[in-house]
């Protein structure tokens, strides 16, 4: 079979798998968040932690719960990382220094999982499990909860109540993430991902060299790293490491896992707003963006333009033989289109065009299809912007799903759109301005600027992948990227919940002949174009100096 035919079949199989689970998983998630019944285990959980699961929270209380919970998560994780030398199974590693611990703690709580450290030479097993694995679950569940609250804002009328953050968080973990993670962790182990508590030990290799055999609770973290669109690898090279991603089948499974919840949430959305066509419209916009980027990345990597790839005869630098170029490009496009940030190949060594497109995927705001929860709320915010733009063209007060988009609502949307570029461009501009911060670059000229842009695009969009030539473990990058991650994650959550509160207060507006239908192909086109135009206008100058200059070199 030719490489092209095999590569296309691989994409087809991924799409079939996603199509098969789309309805059942989407419907199931809708039931989870609309059911009034608690499981016995959940009731016990609420009793132990003394929260009232029946309390229906205002948007401001829902927000305080989310922020308070995240703040505690940062503090606890920071403490675990700083003090890991006192924990069992620390493998003799020291506690992390302050700037690195701050960066890592914010990174995992903000669902970014940017890593300025290398796992195998920095962290013991307890810090990985009780620190990082926990936040892999909880940051994803928190994002999911916020998306569900926004849907309630759209479906509820004349109320100031959006549900209960603790219930949404707990159900997201107990009924969705944990069962899927447990099952697929075992599947990954069967495929070769390691899962043990053995400390690294040395063996003499066949050729007479000395090599350490590594271990650790890898599979249990690997699976939720992908399922929760987190992306923080157990080892430095993430899913390129054979112990995280041993073969082409686990590779496809990992791509499936990182897409499955963001994609199926479109169905959940359609079911919860009681108009499944709306869910399909959101799915279509996600698919258009993901598909177009996949064609671009794959075409670039397979045709391998550029000085080094042309000299080599293929874009194999930074890629593993077992995944091939097709399996690498498919992973790269999916991990940057969701806010996952796991990598199975080194994006810094991609062709200029391929590396530029995966960077653009992040700059779109992580909506193709985006992170767990964050992809859906990002898409809904952009749909509201698209409706607003259409309203301006015909001179009508815009509506979305029967809710008027007035001055207050569109102001929140505008702030949402501005928050991420603010964190990205300011952080990158500072980094590019000083000799000290430029000293961290591996590449020079446009490739060096790409390394900086990629890092802040990754941080501000909560992706977490890197052009890893950048030496990011310095006080400036650790602090600046930590702040970019916090701004990118939590200002948007504040704005989304405020928007949800404003929408829930309204009476529904009846649908008339003048209402713009938001489920038709015309709107899908408008929605997708809005995403691209917003990102294009914001980032084209920066992209022109970085990856576009590399591609044209």
């Amino acid at each position: 079979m030719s490489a092209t035919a095999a590569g296309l079949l691989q994409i087809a199989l991924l799409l079939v798998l996603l199509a098969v689970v789309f309805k059942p998983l989407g419907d199931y998630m809708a039931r989870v968040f609309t059911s009034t019944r608690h499981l016995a285990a959940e009731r016990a959980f609420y009793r132990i932690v003394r929260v009232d699961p029946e309390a229906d929270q205002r948007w401001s209380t829902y927000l305080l719960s989310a922020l308070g919970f995240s703040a505690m998560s940062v503090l606890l994780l920071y403490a675990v990382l700083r003090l890991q030398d006192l924990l069992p199974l620390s493998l003799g590693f020291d506690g992390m220094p302050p700037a690195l611990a701050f960066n890592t703690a914010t990174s995992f709580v903000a669902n970014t999982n940017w890593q300025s450290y290398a796992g195998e030479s920095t962290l013991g097993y307890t810090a990985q499990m009780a620190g990082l694995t926990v936040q892999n679950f909880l940051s994803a569940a928190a994002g999911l909860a916020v998306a569900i609250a926004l849907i309630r804002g759209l479906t509820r009328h004349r109320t100031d109540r959006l549900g209960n953050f603790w219930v949404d968080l707990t159900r997201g973990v107990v009924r969705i993430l944990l069962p899927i993670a447990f099952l697929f962790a075992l599947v990954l182990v069967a495929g070769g991902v390691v899962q043990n508590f053995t400390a690294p030990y040395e063996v003499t290799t066949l050729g007479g060299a000395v090599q350490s055999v590594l271990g650790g609770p890898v599979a249990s973290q690997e699976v939720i790293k992908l399922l929760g669109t987190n992306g923080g690898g157990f080892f430095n090279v993430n899913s390129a490491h054979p112990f995280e991603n041993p073969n082409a089948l686990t590779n496809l499974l990992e791509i499936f896992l990182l897409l499955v919840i963001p994609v199926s949430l479109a169905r959940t959305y359609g079911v919860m707003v009681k108009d499944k066509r709306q869910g399909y419209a959101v799915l279509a916009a996600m698919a258009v963006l993901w598909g177009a980027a996949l064609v671009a990345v794959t075409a670039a990597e397979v045709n391998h333009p550029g000085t080094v790839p042309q000299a080599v005869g293929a874009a194999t630098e930074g890629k593993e033989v077992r995944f091939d170029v097709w399996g690498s490009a498919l992973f790269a496009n999916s991990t940057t289109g969701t806010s996952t940030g796991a990598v199975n190949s080194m994006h810094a060594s991609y062709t200029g065009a391929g590396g530029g497109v995966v960077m653009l995927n992040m700059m779109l705001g992580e909506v193709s299809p985006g992170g767990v929860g964050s992809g859906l709320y990002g898409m809904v915010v952009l749909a509201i912007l698209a409706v607003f733009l259409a309203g301006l063209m015909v001179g009508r007060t815009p509506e979305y799903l029967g809710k008027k988009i007035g001055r207050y609502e569109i102001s929140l949307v505008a702030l949402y759109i501005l928050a991420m570029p603010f964190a990205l461009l300011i952080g990158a501009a500072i980094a590019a301005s000083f000799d000290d911060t430029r000293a961290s670059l591996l590449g020079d000229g446009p490739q060096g600027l790409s390394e900086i842009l990629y890092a802040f695009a990754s941080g501000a969009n909560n992706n977490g992948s890197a052009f890893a030539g950048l030496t990011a473990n310095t006080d400036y990058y650790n602090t600046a990227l930590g702040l970019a991650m916090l701004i990118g994650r939590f200002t948007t959550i504040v704005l989304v919940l405020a928007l949800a509160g404003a929408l829930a207060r309204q009476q529904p507006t009846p649908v008339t002949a003048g209402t713009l239908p938001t489920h038709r192909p015309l709107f899908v086109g408008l929605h997708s174009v809005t995403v691209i135009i917003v990102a294009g206008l914001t980032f084209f100058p920066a992209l022109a100096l970085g990856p576009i200059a590399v591609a044209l070199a």
Partner: protein
Amino acid sequence: MNLTGLARQSWAGLRVLLLFTVLLGVVYPLAVTGVSQLAFGDQADGSLVSHDGEVVGSSLIGQPFDGDEWFHPRPSAAGDGYDTLASSGSNLGPESADLLAAVEERRAAVAELNGVDPADVPPDAVTASGSGLDPHISPAYAAIQADRVAEARGLDPAAVRELVDEHIQDRVLGFLGGERVNVLELNLALEDLDAS
């Protein structure tokens, strides 16, 4: 935003967080480990391979092989090469002059060592993998090494070439990933062939 509200929610958040830490950070990974060790013990421990009764590494992790008597792996950016404590790609970009020079140097070296035309040196032989621990090479890279290995060991070149052919793994299910040869497994088989 009111501070007492935030303090109260944070306190509740801490209680929720601590219980979840026990569930997700201790119980869950222990449960996965327990079932994994029972059901898939070999894989869970790292798919180890032995030679003469000694563990020599993992079939999933590439190893350094120097000397004419071995099949060589790809170039590696992990430490000094295949250092599992320093997994890494080169992260050099497509226009990097350093990478271009390294590629040309490797191609010349591989061509000379194996006595082939530089144009016949395949891409994986001159580029470092993403992990620095890639256990595989392309069938083409294995093929151009066969005669050199046979000569160094005094083996029949046809027998070594046959051994290479036996170790070519097709794409998974016929269409996933790349065709490849596991270097450690091939070299182990070579040792057995040499001993017999």
